[in-house]
């Protein structure tokens, strides 16, 4: 069940210095959807998320969130628009406790007001985090850190959750758990845009996906369509 | 033209300078530039590889005080005193340098550790006030007649000028040797990526130690030379933070990566300080220093490559321009 268009990426090109990572990329995410961006390492997936949350500026094109172009919005204000970005490699603050990391997620004024309520929610969702609340985030296992990173994203009260390679660097068993987490986030009604190399797994949890290769969208469709696509089966699923 | 011929001509021209009947004041400025140019060059021998020492005052202090104390108390000629001071400085450099390089203490940490070394020497000088005169400073005992080769004292300024010129030229020669040596490649590799350098068999710790001890030894000579010239030293002006910072400033101002950069820095800072002192210093106490400090800050913000570095960059741009012009004409 999906609603209106929430996020729109319109013909975005971006890069670092003279290196171009994205060429004319367009995609959209509707309210309530879980959308995947799949593709090999170096395809520009992380760059795409970085453009959306304004860590880097696109060289052309624009990103629109619920009808508001993000162009003039300063980077630190994007989170107030309802976009939470769970970065690649989790990027927790290693020498802050779990709860302090969660508090950082609720930094913007609106989120501070509802800190208690959301903290309870995150602890309910991830009881493990409640047990570890006073532990330094850097001392936890990879799977636990991923929980904390997602929890930190949720603390800002987002409408849209951007997730960058949540399974990267984790043991296969933990990868299963992490995709389980993604399913639960979906079930809570969050809209999710997830970037993954682990195509087989991610297609199990998203409604539809875009295939990104060397900076351009090569294919898009429902998860079932992509799973059935001969190119994807051959190149990425080894079937 | 062969650079070697150019260098010989340049030094010959400089050597001829006292024959033009310069006044004492101008000769004094020249000698000062040569002595400090040598000290700054000594600093840059290590500074150019990213080892930023804020404690070279320590080596200046050892050079000035050890040599003077040995001479004043025991009548030991500086010709023996200087080597003793050099050994002492190099030992200090080794003691401080080894843990720093072994444990990869770099950047801000290294700068502050060396700053501590400078303070140790300065406070030791002050603490030994019965022997050194403490913060009041110390006068080198003059020989009758003012000139003695054995005492390294020359009443005639021109003679001292030649001595300073030789030492300065030797400093530039050492800089060049380091520039051409294998050490340079080792150190440049290590300042890029120490692990990579170590993995291809470069003994980074040893390379850094050698260059640091070289720099310390040279700076010691500079300190002794300064003492012999001024015939007076004091712990603040020779070992304080002020002088240690001044060294780094001058090198950055002149240019860290060029052979003549430190000397240009010495000229620049001396001329600037003298001009300001002559213009403002007599009337309003502190005004010259205020402007000097302000200019230093502006200089680092707007000209971070230094004078020679900026000129070099400008030349490259100009050389690039004619090449680009024909290409533009074809459109």
């Amino acid at each position, binding site marked *: 069940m999906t609603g209106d268009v929430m996020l729109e990426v319109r013909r975005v090109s971006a890069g670092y210095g003279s290196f171009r990572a994205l060429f004319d990329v367009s995609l959209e995410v509707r309210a309530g959807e879980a959308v995947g961006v799949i593709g090999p390492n170096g395809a520009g997936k992380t760059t795409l998320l970085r453009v959306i*949350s304004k*860590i880097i500026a696109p060289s052309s094109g624009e990103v629109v969130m619920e009808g508001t172009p993000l162009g003039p919005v*300063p*980077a*630190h*204000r*994007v*989170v107030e628009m309802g976009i939470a970005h769970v*970065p690649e490699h989790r*990027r927790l*603050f290693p*020498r*802050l406790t779990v709860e*302090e990391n969660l508090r*950082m*997620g609720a*930094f913007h004024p609106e989120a*501070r007001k509802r800190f208690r309520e959301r903290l309870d929610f995150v602890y309910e969702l991830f009881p493990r985090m409640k047990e570890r609340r006073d532990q330094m985030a850097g001392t936890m296992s990879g799977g636990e850190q991923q929980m904390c990173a997602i929890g930190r994203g949720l603390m*800002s009260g987002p409408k849209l959750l951007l997730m960058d390679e949540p399974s990267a660097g984790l043991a296969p068993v933990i990868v299963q758990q992490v995709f389980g987490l993604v399913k639960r986030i979906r079930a809570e009604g969050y809209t999710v845009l997830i970037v993954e190399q682990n195509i087989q797994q991610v297609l199990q949890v998203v409604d539809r996906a875009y295939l990104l290769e060397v900076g351009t969208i090569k294919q898009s469709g429902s998860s079932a369509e992509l799973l059935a696509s001969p190119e994807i089966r051959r190149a990425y699923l080894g079937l | 033209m062969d650079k070697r011929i150019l260098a010989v001509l340049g030094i010959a021209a400089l050597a001829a300078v006292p024959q033009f009947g310069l006044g004492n004041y101008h000769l004094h400025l020249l000698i000062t530039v040569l002595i400090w140019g040598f000290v700054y060059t000594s600093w840059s021998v290590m*500074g150019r590889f990213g080892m*930023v020492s*804020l404690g070279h005052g320590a080596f200046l202090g050892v050079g000035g005080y050890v040599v003077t104390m040995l001479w004043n108390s025991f009548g030991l000629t500086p010709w023996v005193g200087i080597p003793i001071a050099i050994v002492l400085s190099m030992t200090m450099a080794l003691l*401080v340098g080894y*843990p*720093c390089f*072994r*444990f*990869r203490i770099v950047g*801000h*940490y290294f700068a*502050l*550790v060396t700053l*501590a*070394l400078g*303070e*140790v020497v300065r*406070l*030791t000088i*002050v*603490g030994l006030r019965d022997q050194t005169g403490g913060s009041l400073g110390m006068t080198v005992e003059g020989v009758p007649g003012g000139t003695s080769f054995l005492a390294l004292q020359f009443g005639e300024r021109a003679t001292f000028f030649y001595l300073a010129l030789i030492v300065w030229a030797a400093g530039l020669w050492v800089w060049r040797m380091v520039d051409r040596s294998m050490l340079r490649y080792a150190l440049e590799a290590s300042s890029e990526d120490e692990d990579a350098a170590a993995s291809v068999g470069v003994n980074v710790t040893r390379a850094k130690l050698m260059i640091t001890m070289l720099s310390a030894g040279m700076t010691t000579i500079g300190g002794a030379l300064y003492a012999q010239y001024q015939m007076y030293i004091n712990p603040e002006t020779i070992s304080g*933070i*002020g002088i240690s*910072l001044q060294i*780094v*400033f001058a090198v*950055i101002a002149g240019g*860290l990566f060029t052979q003549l950069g430190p000397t240009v820095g010495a000229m620049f800072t001396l001329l600037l300080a003298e001009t300001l002192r002559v213009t403002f210093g007599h009337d309003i*106490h*502190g*005004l010259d*220093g*205020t402007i*000097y*400090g*302000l200019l*230093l*800050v502006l200089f*680092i*913000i707007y000209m*971070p490559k230094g004078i020679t570095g900026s000129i070099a960059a400008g030349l490259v741009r100009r050389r690039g321009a004619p090449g680009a012009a024909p290409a533009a004409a074809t459109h």
Partner: protein
Amino acid sequence: MFDTFLLESIINGILLGGVLALLALGLNLVFGVIDVVWICYAELVMIGMYTIWWLFVFYGLPLPVAIGAGIAVVALLGVLLHILVIQPVLGTAPINQLLVTGGVLFFLQAAATLVFGIEFRNLGVRMPVVEFGDMFFSFARILAFATALVGVLLLWLFLTRSYLGTAIRAISQDREIMPLMGVDPRRIYLITSAIGGGMAGVAASLLVLQYDVHPAIGLSFGPITFMVCVMGGLGNMLGGFVAAFVFAQFISVGGYFFQIEWGYVIAFAFFIAMMFIRPKGLFSR
């Protein structure tokens, strides 16, 4: 035989440690967050001392008002330092960042000479001497120690309990993702600079009660502050706090056995020796 004077030195060392800790903490905070060492930190303290002296002696303001204004002036100076001097060199070679504040050191020293002259100035306030057994302690030192501890405690509470404080600690761990948290790093830098300056201002108010102020006074405690920070581990506040007391003992007790300079020399020599044993600071992680 029990040595009363030695005990007095030890206690004086602890009192001195409080002020050193305060100084080191301010510097450490700035370094941890902005990754720049304010070489001119002690000169900011010097300006604070002059401001208080000037407002109190020259303008006749009540001492608490003069002190409050002094702290505010130095906090503002910290912000100006960041905007005018640090911001333009952020992202350039570290050597330039070190040197630019070194230039400010020269500037502030000379400017103080220009404005206030080279005479030694003091508030002319007589602080009582506290007698305890056979030992005598200056009330100003006890006050300084107590204030420093309160200052350190307040800073600690701020850093651990508030959103801004948490962000200040977080930014030193991962700068790049701060915008994702809704944090504007430039604002955090400014706030940190103001707090760092404010701490220098508090230290100035404590020092001006005990010592004469003159343009070069910064050189007498600046280096020791850097050493304390390095020994504690730059950016590590707990380490800096403990190191401050260790150093103060060296200076005070060393000064008791020898002369005061030797206390410093021993402290610095100890510092260099420590570099062999704990090269990344006492409490390196």
